């Protein structure tokens, strides 16, 4: 810590911040309007929501401020208690920290401890009606973290594990933020600064408010009317179910693999079973997910073989139907207010925590090094959101192709065969395995994945195996 202080001392604050700043017409326009947009010593920042987006924003804002020698006061408003055993701290999430985020966080000095990771994932198994294939990570290393965002499933009587959101919150408190266990009901304005009113009637006026409440809260609608131009993302319903198997069964049935399914079930885009401590988490994404679709999935012979109903006594410990984004927000910022994480922009279907990290850090960097006016956010924060949005458009196309493969049996067989052959040969470039890994785990951008599928070697091999699979109808 003293090292950082000395670094901060040796760099004159203004020079250090100026090195990140690029004067643009938009910024000059904001300044000409008289918006004093820099966060200076003693500035107050409110973060509404203490999930990953809120925690990442608070953590990086305070860290960057320390490097720049600026003292900030950060209040994080979060009514949920992530340390108590009960569903009130649940964050309705599949709970996968992608390979690229695990690596980025470790580089940032945030190593996720084994007490928080329910199971390290070193492989995935792709299940189809024509067979399955296991694909390992390089070096067979545990590269993906399966976590409980809150204190675990509904029937958990004691907390034997650490909540991921609680772990991030601790980092934020250690950095100097104050955690306020209150629900924010209203964001208003007082002398050009945002003012927060909590459910218990407390008021606070801030230089900047970062909203990180996700999309599964009614509060978002009321914030919408208070922030001009903001429109929340469009969403769709998903299914997350926790099934108690016991630690031994989880290890013997699911192992340290994420299980993904390519099944021809109408409306189902993606399905995964993730091992986590004593539980298996079932995640279903698609259109209008409902009870009938969940049952059709669990009753499918492929799923029953992977997760036999007797292993979880035929019922879930708890389940929920959270909303996830299918579009980004419109104008997720105004003067002194910025929307981050799911209520701003997130990746389509995958790596929501990774997108929270990206948007939170982009917003924190903008606020500290450039300013907190709408023009500042438009110039420096919006490109990060737009980048995610543009990539999601390619994601829609990628999932449409995956849907076609899912529907056509000989293509499912070809895909499986291509991946199996790659796994059997050491030294061969694993094009299909890498595409599937990145698609299912969210470890790479949809653009990268799509570009890899356009490689002539990939197309030629897939076409050849597809023709062979079409001719050899009985072979798997």
């Amino acid at each position, binding site marked *: 810590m003293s090292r950082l202080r000395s670094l901060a001392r040796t760099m004159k604050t203004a020079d250090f911040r100026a090195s990140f700043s690029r004067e643009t017409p938009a910024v000059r326009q904001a300044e000409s309007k008289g918006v004093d947009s820099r966060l200076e010593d003693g500035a107050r920042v409110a973060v509404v929501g203490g999930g990953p987006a809120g925690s990442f924003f608070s953590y990086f804002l305070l860290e960057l401020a320390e490097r720049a020698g600026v003292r900030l006061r950060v209040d994080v408003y979060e009514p949920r208690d992530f340390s108590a055993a009960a569903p009130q701290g649940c964050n309705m999430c599949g709970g996968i920290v992608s390979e690229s985020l695990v*690596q980025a966080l470790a580089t940032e000095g945030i190593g996720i401890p084994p007490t928080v990771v*329910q*199971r*390290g994932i070193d492989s995935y198994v792709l299940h189809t009606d024509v067979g399955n294939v296991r694909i390992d990570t390089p070096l067979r290393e545990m590269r993906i973290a399966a976590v409980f965002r809150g204190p675990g499933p509904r029937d958990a009587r004691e907390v034997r594990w650490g909540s991921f959101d609680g772990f991030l919150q601790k980092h934020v408190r250690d950095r100097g933020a104050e955690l306020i266990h209150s629900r924010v009901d209203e964001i208003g304005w007082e002398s050009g600064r945002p003012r927060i009113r909590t459910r218990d009637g407390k008021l606070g006026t801030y230089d900047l408010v970062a909203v990180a409440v996700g999309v599964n809260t009614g509060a978002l609608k009321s914030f919408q009317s208070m922030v001009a131009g903001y429109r929340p993302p469009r969403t769709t319903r998903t299914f997350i179910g926790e099934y108690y198997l016991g630690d031994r069964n989880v290890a013997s049935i699911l192992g*340290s693999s994420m299980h993904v399914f390519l099944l021809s079930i109408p409306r189902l885009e993606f399905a995964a079973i993730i091992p986590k401590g004593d539980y298996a988490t079932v995640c279903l994404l698609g259109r209008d997910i409902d009870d009938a679709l969940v049952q059709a999935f669990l009753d499918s012979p492929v799923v029953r073989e992977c997760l036999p109903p007797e292993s979880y006594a035929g019922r879930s410990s708890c389940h929920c139907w959270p909303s996830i984004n299918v579009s980004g927000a419109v104008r997720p910022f105004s003067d002194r207010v910025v929307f981050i994480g799911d209520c701003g922009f997130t990746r389509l279907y995958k790596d929501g925590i990774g997108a929270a990290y*990206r948007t939170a850090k982009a917003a924190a960097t903008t606020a500290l090094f450039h300013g907190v006016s709408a023009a500042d956010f438009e110039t420096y924060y919006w490109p990060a959101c737009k980048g995610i949005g543009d990539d999601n458009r390619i994601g829609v196309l990628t999932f449409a192709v995956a849907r076609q493969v899912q529907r056509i049996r000989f293509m499912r067989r070809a895909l499986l065969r291509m991946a199996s052959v790659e796994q059997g040969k050491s030294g061969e470039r694993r094009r299909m395995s890498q595409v599937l890994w990145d698609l299912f785990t969210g470890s790479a951008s949809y653009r990268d994945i799509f570009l890899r599928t356009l490689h002539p070697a990939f197309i030629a091999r897939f076409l050849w195996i597809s023709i062979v699979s079409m001719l050899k109808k009985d072979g798997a």
Partner: protein
Amino acid sequence: MQAGALGKTYKNGEIIVRQGETGDSMYIIQDGQVEVVVERDGRELRLRTLGKGEFIGEMAVFEREMRSATVRAVGDVRILTVDRRSIMRKIQEDPSLAFRIMETMSRRIRTLTEEVALLKKEGE
């Protein structure tokens, strides 16, 4: 290895990075210790010991030279691999991600400067 432990466990004496090889990854120690050694004229010189949270092979992120030293596990050590390509892309998007790597390199240059000064003084 615990079910929730990320990375890969190396046993005592196992080599993580070998001097002279070309590297395309850096590593972050999750748990345990490693020793950094260099070979000169058939002799092995132990340079330093590194522990939890420290980077290994971070030079490979910025240059494609051969590894300058060998890194070996001291007891069981758990290491997370960070792919060069993946981290370079992230640094491109967000240069502040490189702060901690730069801090580590800066600290190591400082230590080396002190050691060089000490050696010169001894040689006079």
